[in-house]
């Protein structure tokens, strides 16, 4: 947006109005400067007024259009130790902002007032002014990006100082409005009007990301108060457009008609295997450490790769670091704790979080022989070396166990059957962020990780089966941004990812040729001990041009992949065009190639295919984004994805250098998906937020006869409605989901298998589907504040009216189509909990 265009300027200002300079990160820097206090007139020579040292980062709602002189009047009690004992709103602005400002004020730290040198408690009038800095002056580039597509969704302080600090020395851009002599005048012990302090710190907004065809960013309450998610940020993704539901709410994403494994989960730029714990569990990372969640349903930017559908990217960050803080959350199913320890006057912090479920205590009361456990932990250390350099170290891990014992009868032949699944991973990520001159940036990160997946089965009379996969990861990535000029910049980087895959198994390998099936599942155990290395390295380059209202991104990602018998470079060209035809309206179009290597076990010589090529997809999309009044926005995207080299299961004998091998994977599968996504969203404003997302989709695979047939999880219509409203410390929310049933087939013939003693059905696709899925979730939160302890109590109910949804059909042993039973979905599932913060 050119600064000369009034409409554009209005837009830019509106966008910056979103950025209510919440937490006085930068603002506090200036007010922390003791000079103003020293220069302020002193009513009584023996009394020294308090001086603001630091204040927490504050993020105010996006879309909030505040007047330029927006301020909240407070009466703040400052204790002799410099902490704030009480903060009362005297001059409210509006409820949601008042609450946030009040919370921020409680977390501020002062140099206490003194009488004759001794610290004393004081109560002051404090005008918390929210600075709306003129965008053109404060961040000219950011202003342009806000309208046309900047790469940054965080409005950094005007002075370019670190966005999350609050340290006193960062006072380079003193706000002329920071002091109001009138307000700063009278100082008394009991009633001290401290003055009007403008806070211009980090705030948030969504800006389109160059190179990304579509991105949906969620933050703050949008992540933690959506009903049905049990407060878990990462589950919110399941309600966004482009995502069709997975059976039993397993939490795996079926994005734009692709399979489960085609959507990647990233944390701070590195892949992790799962985002959620098993059994509808929470995310594997504490929501307090999740700074932002970006969901790319397709056409993701070139800095990501190795997935042929979408990306869910989680950026973590330190929790508020103004003081020592502890949090405890307990509900019906789990407990979690978080502790934050700041050091060096807030420049650094250490946070530790731990969560443990106790399903294993509850489930035995209702189900025999089923055990579910999960644990996760996070340890995070952050330090801001100076305004330009920040370092962090993030270690986290997760451990899930599902154990089912007992089986079909109670006799000795089956009672001691046990099936065990364990999934665990650990990651350590170290990162350095460097701000370079001219708003350029450099980020260097390294990762070490370990995963282990164990599946085991023990049944009387047959060998134990174990399937123990271990994977060690090493990763390195360097991401840079060079701003050549206002109209062009380059995003460049590389990432290397190496996986050492080891399998130790006494595995249920497919029966040998000539092997007959047996009446019971008696697999032939084959010992498999094999290590496989999969090395991938990628270089990416994304050149972004801003031609007035048009932003054009041309990107190339070149992935070198080496594993098995494959050693090739796979170029993925991508381009994204965004055209702001009006201040409120953006058209966009994107196309590009995406490549995903096979999972390691598929390339093991024994039972896999070392020559398996990576899966690829060619994704194209077009649509628009429309900004409407009342913080409402509308997005619509039509997409088409052609998938090829899809891995599929076969049973072949092939000739190899090592002699004949049986081969169970081939890379000749083909698929396609197309559809329309609509998102109508109201961002958080005046305590209200919500969205309506609708996805119309069709996903197909070509079968062995060359005929296109619906993908097993194809769901034509997916509608999600989520809304939440906050008033007087209460927050009420609801979420509704309506989804077309997935395809199902009908048994038309069943033959008795004389060897197996069972029936072999033949199914026919008659175009039938399971009944439509529908579910309503409700959530109520109530905040409380008991002095040092504050937090909220909540109740969250999934499937409020206990909808009897079908997840599948069970047939009688002979597949008589007239004798069936539905496989029910998750019934009504309530939980309640309390989250407390002590600081």
């Amino acid at each position, binding site marked *: 947006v050119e600064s000369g265009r009034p409409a554009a300027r209005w837009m830019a200002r509106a966008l910056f109005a979103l950025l209510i300079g919440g937490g006085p990160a930068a603002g506090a820097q200036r007010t922390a400067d003791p000079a103003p206090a020293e220069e302020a007139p002193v009513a009584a020579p023996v009394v020294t007024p308090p001086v603001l040292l630091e204040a927490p980062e504050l993020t105010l709602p996006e879309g909030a259009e505040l007047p330029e002189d927006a301020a909240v009047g407070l009466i703040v009690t400052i204790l002799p130790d410099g902490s704030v004992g009480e903060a009362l709103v005297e001059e409210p602005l509006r409820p949601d902002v008042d609450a946030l400002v009040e919370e921020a004020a409680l977390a501020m730290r002062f140099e206490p007032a003194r009488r004759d040198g001794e610290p004393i408690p004081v109560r002051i009038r404090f005008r918390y002014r929210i600075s709306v800095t003129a965008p053109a002056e404060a961040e000219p580039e950011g202003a342009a990006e806000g309208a046309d597509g900047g790469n940054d969704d965080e409005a950094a302080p005007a002075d370019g100082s670190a966005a999350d600090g609050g340290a006193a020395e960062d006072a380079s851009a003193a706000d002329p409005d920071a002091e109001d002599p009138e307000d700063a005048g009278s100082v008394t012990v009991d009633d001290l009007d401290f003055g009007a302090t403008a806070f211009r710190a980090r705030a948030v907004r969504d800006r389109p990301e160059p190179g990304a065809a579509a991105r949906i960013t969620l933050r703050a309450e949008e992540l933690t108060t959506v009903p049905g998610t049990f407060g878990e940020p990462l589950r919110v993704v399941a309600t966004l457009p482009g995502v069709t539901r997975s059976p039993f709410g397993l939490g795996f994403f079926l994005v734009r008609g692709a399979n489960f494994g085609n959507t990647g989960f990233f944390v701070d730029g590195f892949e992790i295997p799962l985002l959620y714990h098993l059994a509808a569990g929470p995310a594997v990372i504490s929501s307090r450490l999740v700074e932002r969640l970006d969901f790319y349903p397709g056409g993701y930017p070139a800095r990501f790769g190795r997935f042929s559908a979408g990306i869910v990217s989680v950026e973590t960050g330190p929790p508020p670091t103004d003081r020592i803080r502890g949090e405890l959350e307990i509900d019906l199913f789990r407990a979690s704790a978080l502790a934050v320890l700041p050091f060096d006057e807030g420049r650094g912090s250490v946070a530790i979080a731990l969560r443990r479920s106790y399903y294993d205590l509850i489930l035995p009361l209702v189900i025999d022989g089923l055990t579910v456990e999960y644990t996760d932990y996070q340890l995070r250390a952050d330090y801001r070396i100076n305004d330009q350099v920040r370092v962090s170290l993030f270690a986290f891990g997760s451990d899930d166990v599902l154990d089912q014992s007992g*089986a079909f009868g109670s006799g000795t032949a089956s009672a001691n059957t046990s099936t065990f699944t364990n999934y665990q991973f650990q990651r350590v990520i170290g990162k350095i962020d460097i701000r370079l001159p001219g708003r350029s940036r450099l980020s260097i990160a390294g990762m070490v990780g370990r995963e282990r997946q164990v599946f085991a089965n023990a049944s009387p009379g047959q060998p134990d089966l174990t399937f123990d996969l271990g994977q060690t990861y090493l990763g390195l990535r360097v991401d840079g941004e060079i701003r050549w000029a206002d109209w062009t910049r380059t995003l460049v980087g590389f990432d290397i990812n190496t996986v050492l895959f080891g399998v130790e198994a006494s595995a249920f390998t497919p029966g040998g040729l000539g092997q007959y099936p047996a009446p019971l599942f008696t697999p032939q155990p084959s010992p498999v001990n094999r290590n496989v290395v999969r090395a991938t390295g990628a270089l990416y380059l994304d050149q972004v041009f801003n031609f007035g209202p048009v932003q054009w991104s041309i990107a190339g990602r070149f992935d070198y992949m080496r594993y098995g018998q494959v050693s090739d470079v796979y170029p993925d060209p991508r381009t994204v065009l965004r055209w702001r035809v009006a201040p409120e309206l953006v058209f966009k179009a994107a196309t590009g190639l995406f490549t995903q290597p096979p999972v390691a076990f598929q390339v093991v010589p024994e039972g896999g295919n070392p020559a398996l090529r990576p899966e690829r997809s060619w994704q194209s999309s077009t649509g628009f984004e429309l900004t409407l009044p009342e913080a409402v926005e509308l997005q619509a995207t039509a997409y088409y994805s052609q998938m090829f080299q899809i891995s599929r299961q076969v049973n072949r004998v092939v000739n190899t250098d090592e002699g004949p091998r049986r081969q169970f994977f081939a890379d000749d599968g083909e698929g396609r998906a197309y559809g329309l996504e609509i998102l109508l969203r109201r961002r958080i404003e005046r305590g209200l937020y919500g969205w309506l997302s609708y996805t119309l989709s069709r996903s197909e695979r070509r079968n062995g006869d060359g005929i296109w047939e619906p993908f097993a999880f194809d769901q034509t219509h997916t509608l999600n409605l989520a809304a939440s409203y906050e008033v007087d410390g209460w927050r009420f929310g609801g979420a509704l989901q309506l989804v077309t049933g997935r395809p199902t087939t009908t048994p038309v013939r069943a033959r008795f298998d*004389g060897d197996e003693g069972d029936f072999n059905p033949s199914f026919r696709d008659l175009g039938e589907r399971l009944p439509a899925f529908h579910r309503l979730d409700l959530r109520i939160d109530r905040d409380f504040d008991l002095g040092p302890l504050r937090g909220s109590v909540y109740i969250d109910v999934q499937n409020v009216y206990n909808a009897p949804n079908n997840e599948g059909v069970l047939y009688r042993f*002979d597949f008589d189509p007239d004798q069936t039973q539905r496989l029910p979905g998750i019934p009504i599932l309530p939980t309640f909990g309390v989250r407390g913060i002590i600081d």
Partner: protein
Amino acid sequence: LKRLVPFLALFAAGCIDIDLPSPTVVDTPRILAITSEPPEPAPGTDLVVGAMIVDGDGTPILDGRQGVEATWTVCLSVQALLSGLGQALPEGAPRQDCVDEASGLVTLREAEDIDPADPELGRYASLPPNFAVLPGAVSEARFGGLEALVPLLAAQDPAAAEVFRVIVDEVGLPIEVNLEVDLNRAPDPGDEVLPFEGFKRVAFTRRDPATTNPPAPRFRFGGRWVSGRGVEAPFLCQAEDPENGPVTAQAGARVAIAPEEDDERWREEYPVVNLSGVVQTNREQSYYSYFVRDGSLREGVTQAPFRDEEWTVPSAPGTSSPLWVVVRDGAPRGERLPPRRRGGVRSRGALRRGTGAPPRRACTRRPSRSTRGVGGRLSP
């Protein structure tokens, strides 16, 4: 984790109360077992197949009686044989989809189709109902064709041709023998009359000696021994002490059924081609499948070393009720390993209860295959 989705679904399914009829309770016309003798015929050897078919009331269904028509067929087309090995039909080989004789479909001969004076097949003229024979001459002719197939396959894929040769010579080429039973009556008034079907794999091989079927079952019912050995009628067991009258059980009681634990001697070894294309020798496992018309069974299927079954007898006294036992050998047996810390063995589960009546003698035998193997590695 995405690979665990099926397991998670399985867990979910395990948490619901499944209210579908048990496969161990016979209440509709069904095939309960199919036998072949020998289980691994060499090409040129006569193959006799038979089926135990029962009605919903537990009475036997016999071919040719009360309008019942049972038809045995086998598809010996090259196309079908290759597809069983995951191989495409080589160029030059005829496409045969087994819709008729010309395309590879062979109908087995039943007693009524055989002239007693036929010097080759006359001895099969007395085959009981539900039995049929595939003359050795037919299989010999077909397998001669298969050998000619090897060079064709070799031109396409030498490794696959070699595997194919080894399969025929050493492992055995599994061929499905099909049975279609047309009752010529609706199961229930108003229902559509539909035939029901079954099949059994028979491994044709030149390996010598091939494996054999297990003997007819002998088991203890309560305190008495019941056996199918030495009984002329097919699929019938008798009490070994007939002088003590029919085998009975207390109404509502739970009766232990325990097969004779002598299966170690008839469990044989047989070869298969494992994942790496290597011929591997496996040892058979023994399986016991149980069916009742009345009451309920605890397990349904057992395998060594836990062979025992428990039948809950119907509570109504004075009922004569059939019990069927099917003995199979086949897929390998392994050793039971000690429990692990995680995923270890735990003893849980609910006892299923039902009602029943005293048993009538009935059993089946030899519905199985055995193989014996030669080891070695294939040459490409």
